[in-house]
């Protein structure tokens, strides 16, 4: 049993864990292993098989994507590149083409507030009118979009061929009725890194959304790999459901063997 192995401090390689939500870059915590190969050593301690790394904390998304690409090239079996795009960094689809065709990235991350002061109150959806092209590109190339802000419920409804994953959505969809409404969209998923994740809300999400619509993630470096395991491992659900959340669902969405 995975829980017993974890409590015994054993490496969990045999459970094929994939962290869907990792930030590669400094992000103000320069003393932590978030922008170096030390992150691989941290994965090894626990037995995390792969991380999906994005570079959206870089002020220049293209630079962040290049850094992630270099990281993924050094560790092709451990790092899955996720493309960061932002309308203030140029044509987003052109950047996506570079990320997918040149770097081999398998997903997209969008965030509504990555460029802060003096543009904190800016609505990035209103810049450049590029978002629909991004969603179409994602659908065409089977790239799941991990979103924090930007994406609206109308987008999820109007782009049914595009896969959307709500970052922090496991406890971010507040209230049972909201969860039930979003559960109806078959192209919608949630991931698990949430600061205020009560066991009650976490279990409610699994019951309403289904374990096959939830992806485990940590938001590293803001959270430790081992710390975030507990959120799922302590749920009163079956081992198969836990394994789906810990990696099976991500493997399917990312098209990994």
């Amino acid at each position, binding site marked *: 049993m995975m829980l017993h192995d974890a409590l015994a401090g054993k490496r969990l390689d045999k459970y094929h864990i994939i962290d869907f939500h990792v930030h590669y870059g400094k992000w103000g915590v320069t003393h932590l292993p978030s922008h170096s190969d030390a992150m691989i050593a941290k994965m090894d301690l626990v037995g995390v098989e792969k991380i999906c790394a994005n570079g959206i904390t870089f002020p220049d998304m293209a630079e962040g994507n290049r850094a992630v690409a270099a990281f993924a090239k050094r560790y092709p079996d451990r790092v899955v590149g996720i493309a960061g795009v932002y309308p203030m960094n140029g044509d987003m689809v052109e950047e996506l083409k570079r990320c997918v065709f040149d770097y081999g990235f398998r997903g997209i991350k969008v965030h509504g507030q990555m460029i802060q002061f003096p543009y904190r109150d800016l609505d990035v959806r209103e810049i450049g009118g590029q978002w629909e092209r991004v969603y179409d590109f994602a659908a065409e190339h089977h790239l799941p979009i991990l979103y924090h802000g930007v994406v609206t419920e109308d987008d999820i409804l109007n782009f049914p061929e595009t896969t959307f994953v709500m970052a922090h959505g496991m406890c971010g969809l507040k209230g049972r009725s909201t969860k039930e409404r979003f559960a109806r969209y078959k192209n919608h998923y949630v991931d698990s890194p949430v600061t205020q994740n009560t066991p009650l809300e976490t279990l409610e999400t699994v019951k309403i959304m289904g374990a096959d619509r939830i992806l485990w993630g940590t938001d*590293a470096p803001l959270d430790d790999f081992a710390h975030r395991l507990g959120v799922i491992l302590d749920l009163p659900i079956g081992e198969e459901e836990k394994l789906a959340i810990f990696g099976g669902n991500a493997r399917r969405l990312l098209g990994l063997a």
Partner: protein
Amino acid sequence: MLPFLDAACVIGPYANPESPPGYEGNVAGLALKMAELGIVEACPSSITASFYCVDEGNQELLQAIEPYPQLHPVFLVAPNQTGEMPPPDQLLAKMPTMSLAKMLVDEVQFYTPLIDVELYGEVFDALAASRTPLLLDYANFFHEHTFRLRELLKGWPQLPVLLKFPKVACEERVLYYLWEKFENLHVVMSGYQLLGGIEKVVERFGARAFVFGSNYPYFTPLQSMLHLIYCELSDGDKRLIAGDTVRGLLRKEVAA
């Protein structure tokens, strides 16, 4: 298995039937979850004391945990100028020897909006004289809190302070400053979740920098347990953080 002692959990007089087993929010649920995960001891505080009546809540807590020798009470403390609770020395006399004191620091509501060393001076004097550790439970943790916390740690160096907050990220820079200056500061693990952060801190300031506390039932204790289990620390350091530091504080042991 590490000898876990949960220094930061709360219980109420109720039971939420929709919560997963062990998270009902009462003492039976806490005992069940502790047994399931292998937590040896815990220090719960009372939700009634935090949000209804300090004195009634503290007494209710004592009654609730009486059948559970593995539980040690955490008494809410507050200024007594209104007369709604006993003066600090009388309050301490009501507390079992192995107890923690707690202040819920919340700028929006209830008893302690900010740590004010003049207003709460008598409380700190009494706690320090009896070496009763103080758990400071912050609803938020802003930069302004650092200044006030510094005054407390500096003014009462013999008072062990357990600092709990929802979560820190880049704000942890102020913690490095406080750890460096004050030996009596112990940060509760539940809010400190940074990748590889614990190892960095312990390397510089020693294992006394952290104590295990889960923020149960809002968080599963398993989060911080696994964080510590998988840390790159010596077994001795892990044991201190898991519970031995707080056990020493509860027994009023004084470092040589």
